[in-house]
């Protein structure tokens, strides 16, 4: 027992040493996500004339929205900067042009003064048009600046009345600005057209769409979305991949985002030292309607064009994202290399291609959002060709060992008997 304890302690010490070796800081990594600004949320409320309709729990839609806003304002976490924007609140007339510009900031995005915000909400009366597209553009401007997470919560009861500016494309363009903005939508009416439009807006930015039929559902959902914004999230860094390995941007460990058009390939480069392991995973999101079969290929290629390893994924059906990854452990150099010679890093080219195809009538620019995680860890995983330190298990193993031991014992017995006999005759 004592011996085994000592053995265990020895193994522990060895392991601790190993762990310490692994935990030695790697190269200085560009990680600029450490200091994060507070999250920002802009609530965009439809105050168009149709909000007068009394079909939510027997009350008007506007009343339900006001009640929900009051409760949400009470429950907003301290560190969230919340703003409120209205659409269709001021212009009651018939002029489409003016009506479609009717969006105003009711409460600016910033530290929240609950009473002031509530007073502002109380003044709202259902009035005008439903200019969703322009309101989203303005809301995105409201949230400009800072590196915290940003979220727009759009509450509407009717589809956009300001064609040809398609709010869905507006949303996609806002997302393509690379400011990490998500738009969540809530529809107050179970109406097919509204549903299609709002879910399209949500899909374009990785947000969610909810159809609301009761006042408490509205409150719960908006609260949930505001809370979601408050959760700290790693914000990816923008990068632009090249068309070939030669001009590709060099990446270090971190989270990156890019855009990749249909049929386009993107190249990135990562330097891997001997004894390090490269881990890369990539996701391409389908932020618009795409054909139901699709795929993604991530290849690690040497600068000379030899493929090292690849990750592939394919799928069909409705999806938000398709993703794959790969691992490339680079072996340690042989021992005979002198210690003072710094080993040269190998440049690994990463190629990302997708086989999404756009559904009929879908715009192909800007490209699909691409998210990439790069991890270069010290020490590649090692193994030898024996199974688990050459240890075995199972009854066959026991049987063989017992038999071998028995035979050895028998042999030894005979030998010693023979030796005694020899000794006796002499």
């Amino acid at each position, binding site marked *: 027992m004592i011996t085994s304890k000592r053995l265990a302690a020895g193994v522990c010490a060895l392991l601790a040493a190993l762990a310490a070796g692994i935990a030695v800081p790697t190269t200085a990594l560009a990680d600029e996500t450490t200091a994060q600004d507070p999250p920002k949320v802009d609530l965009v409320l439809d105050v168009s004339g149709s909000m007068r309709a009394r079909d939510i729990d027997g009350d008007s839609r506007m009343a339900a929205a006001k009640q929900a806003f009051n409760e949400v304002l009470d429950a907003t976490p301290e560190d969230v900067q919340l703003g409120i924007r209205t659409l269709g609140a001021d212009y009651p007339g018939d002029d489409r042009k003016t009506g479609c510009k009717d969006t105003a900031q009711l409460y600016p995005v910033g530290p929240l003064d609950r009473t002031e915000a509530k007073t502002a909400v109380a003044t709202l009366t259902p009035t005008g048009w439903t200019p969703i597209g322009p309101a989203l553009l303005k809301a995105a401007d409201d949230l400009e600046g800072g590196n915290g997470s940003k979220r727009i919560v759009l509450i509407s009861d009717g589809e956009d009345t300001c064609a040809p500016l398609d709010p869905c494309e507006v949303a996609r363009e806002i997302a393509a600005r690379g400011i990490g903005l998500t738009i969540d939508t809530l529809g107050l009416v179970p109406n097919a057209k509204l549903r299609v439009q709002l879910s399209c807006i949500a899909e374009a930015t990785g947000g969610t769409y909810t159809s609301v039929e009761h006042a408490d559902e509205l409150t719960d959902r908006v609260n949930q979305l505001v809370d979601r914004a408050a959760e700290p999230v790693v914000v990816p860094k923008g990068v632009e991949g090249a068309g070939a390995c030669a001009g590709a941007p060099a990446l270090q460990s971190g989270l990156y985002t890019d855009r990749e058009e249909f049929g386009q390939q993107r190249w990135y480069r990562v330097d891997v030292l001997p004894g390090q392991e490269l881990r890369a995973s990539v996701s391409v999101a389908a932020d618009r309607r795409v054909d139901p079969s699709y795929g993604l290929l991530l290849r690690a290629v040497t600068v000379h064009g030899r493929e090292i390893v690849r990750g592939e994924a394919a799928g069909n059906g409705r999806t938000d994202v398709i993703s794959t990854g790969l691992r490339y*452990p680079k072996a340690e150099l042989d021992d005979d290399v002198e210690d003072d010679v710094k080993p040269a890093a190998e440049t690994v080219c990463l190629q990302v291609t997708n086989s999404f195809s756009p559904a009929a009538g879908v715009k192909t620019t800007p490209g699909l959002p691409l998210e990439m995680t790069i991890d270069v860890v010290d020490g590649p995983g090692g193994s030898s060709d024996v199974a688990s*330190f050459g240890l075995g298990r199972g009854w066959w193993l026991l049987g063989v060992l*017992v038999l071998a031991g028995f035979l050895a*014992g*028998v042999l030894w*017995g005979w030998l010693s008997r023979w030796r005694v006999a020899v000794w006796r005759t002499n």
Partner: protein
Amino acid sequence: MRTIRMRRTTRGVRATRVVRAAAGAVTAGVFLLLGGTVSPAVADSSPSASPSDDGSGDGSQEGDAPTEAGTSFRTATEIEQGQKATASASTGDYLYWSFPADAGGRPTVKATVKLPDSARSSATWQIDVYDGLRRRQACQYGAQTRLAGADAGAVNLSCTLRTVRAWSEQWANDPLPGTYYVRLTATDLGTADLGVPVNAEIRVDSKDVGGSAAVDGSLAEPLVPGIAMTTEEPSGDEGAEGSDESPTAVLSSLEPDDGWASGWWSDRWVWTAVGGILAALAGVGGYALTRGSGRPSQVPPGA
């Protein structure tokens, strides 16, 4: 006593695990000698979990299971194995959770979706499991995809992964220790069913497969996304997991209750050691059989 002594000589969760494993090995070996068969359950449960384990600070207890789900890989909600997490969402949402799985375990993901009465048509629900490299992992068995009829109240989904190995070839897609992502969604939906509120429940449990799945080799670091950035800060075992007090966002801060296994322990040590002991006993027996008792019978007492 045992634990205290060991904690002085070593550090960290990993070490605690080693101590436990070693103690488990000894106990299990004795048990085997007494005629039982070794089973992973024995190796796991025999050393009572010492109270000092709490010091390693796994942030979430049974009581505060997550009630939210993430909406992307990046925002996936972290759950512990054995925890029942819930989430309210809308049909059409993509719900993401992540959980840690360690070598030698075979995780099973079980999800239940409670559908609203107002669902108008049938929908197919699906869970997909991805590993730390966001590679899709195959389900050995379990209803990964299920069609919910228009009048169904709930859908039960389940997915049993392959056994998580400590190491695999870089070209292989074997499950490796690290973070796993679960995505729950409806794969086909009419527009009429978009946005309807649903409730989802998820739970991940692991079966310990034991030494039969042991391989020789281990990863330098578990497949945890962003681990190259988190190992930068001094790896204090206590502070690293307190993600709720540190505002710094990390991609994944998950770790199994007792730390990542280093990949060296398996019940094969017990099998081989016991085999050696039995072989020695058999050797003594064989010797006694042929050598006879004491002196050869023909030798006269006076010789």
